[in-house]
């Protein structure tokens, strides 16, 4: 982040060089056609200017020429499409072993929760050379998490979890911006991403305090007396033992996989999906729990072992990805 004049952004992630290569290809195509058109216009415009000695006339129409200048742009645009889709697929597909960090956006700040319970505001510390997956949600309006040096960006929505991932490949401090207009202080919803060597990152983590999310989640679960209804058996709410990842039958006759999105909406919009065999008794916890709290309770719910459990994974930064959130 030096303050000298720049023409090209610094790059610090595994995908940045591939995005830049594609970009430079597009720049080359754009320059070629812009120069072609400008040179032709100037050449014809001067050579055939009124009063010049050039030969003039109405040439016959040429379907071959028309075909050529429709087919060439088509083929070039298909190269762009396939190349762009290939890079996009990798931008959108995090590896299974990615370190998962939670991000909550609100007007006008970013809150970051690490799996070990460390939290930070408007800063994101990440280890060098390790894939990082961000699970993101907004408390209010749409925001967008944008790290130019990594060439990645993802909108952060209220009500839905979205995700993005990257693998930093250069230590340093990089800009973090909100890219989706979100109100008065939109331009101040900025921060920095700090890429540390793995040892330095471990040092940084150990210097921060905070309870792991499943521990904090258990406390919230207790404080809001969730267990008074969600008993293992015979409660007025369905048992939560082993609920994560399980297919839940609904009153409507459909069924739904209990992923993070489902668990979140069951806490904040409980009337949306009623589990088969239960009454719509649960009040909404909107206003009592913020998005960070909900993430912690979900982390706790993932630890609840039980029969018919489909989730055998560990908590925190593991393979416990839900099916991709598609909104």
């Amino acid at each position, binding site marked *: *982040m030096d*303050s000298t004049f720049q*023409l*090209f952004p610094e790059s610090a992630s595994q995908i940045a060089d591939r*995005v830049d290569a*594609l*970009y430079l290809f*597009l720049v080359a*195509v*754009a320059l070629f056609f812009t120069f072609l*058109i400008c040179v*032709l*216009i100037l050449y*014809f*415009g001067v050579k*055939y*200017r*009124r009063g010049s000695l050039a*030969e*003039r*006339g109405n*040439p016959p*129409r040429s379907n071959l020429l*028309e075909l050529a*200048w*429709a087919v060439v*742009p*088509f083929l070039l*645009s*298909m190269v762009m*499409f396939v*190349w*762009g*889709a290939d890079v*996009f697929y990798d*931008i959108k597909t995090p590896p299974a072993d990615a370190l998962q960090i939670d991000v909550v956006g609100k007007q006008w700040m970013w809150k970051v929760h690490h799996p070990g319970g460390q939290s930070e505001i408007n800063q994101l510390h990440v280890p060098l050379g390790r894939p990082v997956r961000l699970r993101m949600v907004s408390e*209010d*309006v*749409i925001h967008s998490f*944008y790290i130019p*040096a990594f060439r*990645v*960006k*993802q*909108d952060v*929505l*209220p*009500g*839905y979890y979205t995700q993005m991932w990257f693998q930093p490949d250069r230590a340093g401090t990089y800009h973090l*911006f909100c890219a989706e*207009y*979100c*109100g008065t*202080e*939109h*331009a*101040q919803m900025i921060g920095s991403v700090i890429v540390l060597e793995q040892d330095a990152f471990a040092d940084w983590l150990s210097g921060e305090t905070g309870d792991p999310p499943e521990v904090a989640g258990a406390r919230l679960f207790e404080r809001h007396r969730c267990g008074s209804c969600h008993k293992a058996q015979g409660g007025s709410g369905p048992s939560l033992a082993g609920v994560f990842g399980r297919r839940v039958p609904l009153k409507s006759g459909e069924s739904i996989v209990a992923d993070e999105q489902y668990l979140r909406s069951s806490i904040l919009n409980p009337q949306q999906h009623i589990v088969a065999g239960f009454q719509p008794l649960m009040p909404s916890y909107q206003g009592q729990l913020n998005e960070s709290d909900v993430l912690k309770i979900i982390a706790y719910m993932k630890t609840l072992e039980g029969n018919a459990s489909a989730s055998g994974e560990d908590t925190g930064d593991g393979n416990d990805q839900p099916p*991709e959130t*598609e*909104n």
Partner: protein
Amino acid sequence: MSNRNYLNANYNVWSWFFTTDHKRVAILYLISITVFFLVGGAAAVLFRLELMTPEGDLVLPETYNRLFTLHGIVMIFFFLIPAVPAVFGNFLLPMMIGARDLAFPKLNLASWYLYSLSGLFGVWVILTGGVDTGWTFYTPYSTTYGNTSVLSAAIAAFIAGFSSILTALNFLVTTHTMRAPGMTWFRLPLFVWAHYAMSLVVLLGTPVLAIAIALVGIERAFHVGIFDPKLGGDPLLFQHLFWFYSHPAVYIMVLPAMGVISELITCFARKKIFGYTFIAFSSLAIAVLGFLVWGHHMFVSGQSMYAGFVFSFLSMLVAVPSAVKVFNWTATLYKGSVIWNTPMLYALGFIGLFTMGGLTGLFLATLGVDVHVHDTYFVVAHFHYIMVGGSLMAYLGALHFWWPKMTGRLYPEGWGRISAILIFFGFNLTFFPQFVLGYLGMPRRYHVYPEEWQILNVMSSAGASILGVGYLLPLGYLVWSLRYGRRSGKNPWRASGLEWEAESPPITHNFHKTPIVTGDVYDYDPTEPVELETEKHPEKVTVQ
């Protein structure tokens, strides 16, 4: 010959406010559009001044946000969408097909009232009510977090939509039913084809914007959960509805401009346009494809990756008809007899800038690159190359080309060329640095930014001041020419087309008797010597 024309037929004020003459309605539009352009431009001056420094030292953030909202809403809904069709389409479409007026003259006047009242209401609401959502009105910011004036501003856009629906309906019916004898479909000027394609887009797209705005109103007033997830709604639904109209709206703004360019290029190359049918059908292709690409505004919105693939592919296809047009215009110059006067400078400038705008559009349709440049200044630069470098250049070219027909006066050619060149260079200096800023990662709608980006922002603001001078010059010399300009004959450009067979300015019913079309369109001969009226010495001009 009588000196009565549509302008001096009646000097009574009410004869203007209750006119049903398509030419007078066009003049009413010309005046209101100029007012709105100045309002939108003033907002741009203020925020370009703010962006001269990285700190927010000129205006407060809330003021900055209102300024870009004002600029966007006014320039899109109240300048660019009506500019070419409502002024030149209204004036020329009936004349080009040999008709006395549009099919529904009263609806035409009604559309001007809807437009002007909604525009004044919109500007008043944004200034006094503090609307700061941007022209895109994204939910749930606009429904739940913005103040109540958001809905009033959206209603202004909603009503303006009906104004363009009425104009489009009029153009379609007029083109189908009122062509002069012998004016077959493939003798229609490409200007008419372009307006026909635009009218289809307006009729099919605008109601969807109306629906989206109505749903925003229902959510705000009755708390029905449509867009706000806290009420059980889906925030992305709004983006789908909004862009289903607002992407085709880009083609509403650019298709008529393309029609203008086809007329100017063929006239000042003194040559039949190359590939007439390909240009005509590429307008229709753009109109159809334009409805299938809205999702390319949503690649990072949380939309499914597979939807991204589909929308990227479809967006790429739009490149084909656009490229076809650019190549055909360029080929028209070949073996022509090119005259480098003011309208032609605008037309050639259009081709260059539209080419750049179109090619950078491919960057945004390319998924892997769009993730990085989405919502940055790259996007801002891209759409200004299309909207300003494209549509506005065409609008100014049209204004100079048909000014003698509309007013009966010639504009001063030297001043015209100076302003066209100033605008071309000022435009590039303003918007080219924004491509660089965008790839560096500067997000749009930021009133403060990191200091390493100041030099590029200062370049952009400097360009904007040149651009501002370039726009004010025509305002001055065109008004001057109304009184002091030399009188124009019927056909100052020796152009083909029925509008040039009418008087300048035309009589109220356009033609003394209905023209009968026997020849092909664009009957130009590049080997024939030609002298334009702007080039004659004053004493040789014969006033008709």
